[in-house]
């Protein structure tokens, strides 16, 4: 074993950055990883604030508009809360063993799988239905405008549900299941 230790210590480490270079690097990469999650949370909260503002400033007379607004706000709440929960888990992860870390990764990937299977369907369903209901009051008097707006909206929703989501879902679930298999293998090594 001592022979191995002697060989192990011959590894060259002189091309590592100096502490000054490292500090420069560290400041550059600060929080970059979680930036996307923060972006989604801020966007969802901003959309929610905009919708709430609309509810109070635009006095609609039809129930469809109110239901549409509520559905869109609910979709924003789902998006923001899912990401806030996931951010909290990342920040809590400060000092944990390999065993706890693997368990965390497994749980995170399971959550992602659940997100693609359930949460995303709810969020997309609510915002799609919300959009269709919300627009009705503004266009129902003009048949031409109604047809144009609704054709575009329905086409976009169909594209989202029948092409974009299934494609994305398939790609993500294959990737997540592969990762989960690998994580399970490692987790069995720490039992």
């Amino acid at each position, binding site marked *: 074993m001592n022979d191995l230790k002697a060989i192990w210590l011959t*590894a060259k480490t002189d091309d590592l950055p100096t*502490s000054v270079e490292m500090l420069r690097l560290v400041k550059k990469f600060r*929080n970059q990883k979680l930036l996307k999650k923060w972006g989604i949370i801020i966007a969802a909260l901003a959309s929610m604030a905009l919708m709430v503002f609309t509810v109070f400033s635009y006095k609609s007379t039809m129930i469809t508009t109110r239901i549409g607004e509520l559905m869109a706000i609910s979709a924003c709440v789902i998006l923001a809360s899912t990401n806030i929960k996931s951010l909290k888990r990342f920040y809590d992860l400060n000092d944990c063993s390999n065993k706890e870390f693997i368990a965390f990764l497994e749980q995170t990937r399971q959550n992602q799988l659940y997100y693609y299977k359930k949460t995303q369907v709810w969020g997309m369903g609510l915002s799609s239905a919300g959009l269709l209901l919300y627009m009705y009051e503004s266009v129902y008097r003009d048949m031409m405008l109604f047809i144009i707006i609704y054709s575009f909206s329905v086409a976009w929703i169909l594209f989202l549900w029948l092409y974009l989501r299934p494609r994305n879902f398939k790609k993500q679930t294959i990737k997540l299941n592969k990762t989960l298999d690998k994580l399970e293998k490692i987790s069995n090594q720490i039992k």
Partner: protein
Amino acid sequence: MDFEEIYSLYSPQIFRVCMGYVNDHDQAKDLTQETFISVWKNLAGFRNQSKISTWIFRIATNNCLRAIEKSKRVVITELPFHLPEAPQEESQEEKLAFLYKAISELEEIERIIISLVLEDLPQAEIADIVGLSTGNTRVKIHRIKEKLAIKFKDHGQFE
């Protein structure tokens, strides 16, 4: 201890541990950098619940484990030299390359454990980093040493 002191003290160790895990110089360098980015970000919040070395090795080894989620595969490199029929004197680099290769053929957690053993960490600290009991860690270390001994015997060196 400030960040610069910590970096100067631990970066060579962390690099060697990452190298033991991934057997790829550039990836090991990246993982070392990622480790110290986390150390820098969380240093103020470090509450001395564990030793600072345990904390840093935990971050480093967790980063290594995380590498399985990235597309780049952990490399099990072929030896960069022709293996002689009869054992000849090998250079230090060749010996080190063989050691890395032998380690890279182990399972993930075994790679982490042996790298920490080679860094001379006490078994109790290794157990704390990995999340195993001390007894279980001792058994694992014994098994890994046996596995490595077989590999080195087959290679015809360091008997």
